[in-house]
């Protein structure tokens, strides 16, 4: 099971935002779609960062809002660019489930964007999918079900 390549279990419809989106937009998207991380892409669709629900909550709590407030100025609405992480941990579609799980545990993350470098500009990465702990779990559940069904019909 741990040798299954990530491309076989990743989600391919990935919700992304651009850096100009508001932090509040990110919060709303997470709530609406039930997701906890959103890869951030530039105008050309290349990965430039990632926003997680921790980043959003930190931005929304009073501390951060107070820190960014200056008397006399219009209230500035935080953008995604203000709160995102720019050094994104990513994996290629050929990475195995075993490798992905090891990264989850080592880096203490619950999901990773799956990326492919642009053929002409290898430093620019396109997001082709996303894989989360839940996807790994579903893989385990499917393996059990098939095993149990196999035993039942034997």
């Amino acid at each position, binding site marked *: *099971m*741990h040798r299954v390549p990530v491309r076989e279990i990743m989600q391919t419809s990935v919700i992304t935002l651009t850096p100009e989106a*508001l*932090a*509040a937009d990110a*919060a709303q998207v*997470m*709530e609406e779609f039930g997701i*906890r991380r959103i890869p951030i892409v530039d105008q050309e669709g290349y990965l430039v960062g990632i926003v997680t*629900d*921790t980043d*959003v*909550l*930190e*931005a*929304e*709590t*009073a501390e951060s*809002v*107070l820190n960014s*407030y200056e008397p006399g100025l219009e*209230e500035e*609405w*935080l953008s995604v660019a203000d709160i995102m992480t720019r050094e994104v941990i990513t994996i290629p579609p050929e990475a195995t489930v*075993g490798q992905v*799980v*090891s990264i*989850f*545990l080592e880096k*203490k993350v*619950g999901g990773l964007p799956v990326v492919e470098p642009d053929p002409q500009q290898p430093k620019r990465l396109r997001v082709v999918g996303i894989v989360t*702990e*839940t996807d*790994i*779990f*579903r893989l*385990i*559940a499917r*393996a*059990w079900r*098939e*095993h149990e069904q*196999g*035993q039942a019909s*034997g």
Partner: protein
Amino acid sequence: MKEQTAPEQPATEQPVPGPPDEQKFVSTFVQDWMTPHPYTCTPDTSLADVYDVMVEKGFRRMPVVDEEGRLVGIITFGDLRQAAPSSVTSLSLFEINYFWAKLTVKETMTPNPVTLAPDDTIKTASQHMLEHKISGLPVVSGEKVVGILTQTDILRFLVSLL
């Protein structure tokens, strides 16, 4: 071009390859991989305090207990996010700070959460998490919280088998 038909399933008694070490999934128990003696809060704890602990310790959920230490609910990081006043509201900054410090766990928690027993198997735990779409469960013995088991703990177990 003629369409190919799918080959028939062979009617022999071939063993179906199952998940590797399936035996381990049913013979390993929640108590072996849970975090024991978890941090807990009470229904009157403020969300601001829960938030501070979660961020400092890296937790995503916390069991809520009464004065006797019995489980009455669970509060998650997602609950905090939904309860947090948004920076786009028309509240003044003073009001936001006050509001956030005043909200308590009891208004936001999920009461009567799904729980595990210490002698449940890892397989049972995984099935509960998938069925209820949650990534962590309190482990209860009697009515007392004795641990927490998360998806991440199950993944650590998986890695230990590799």
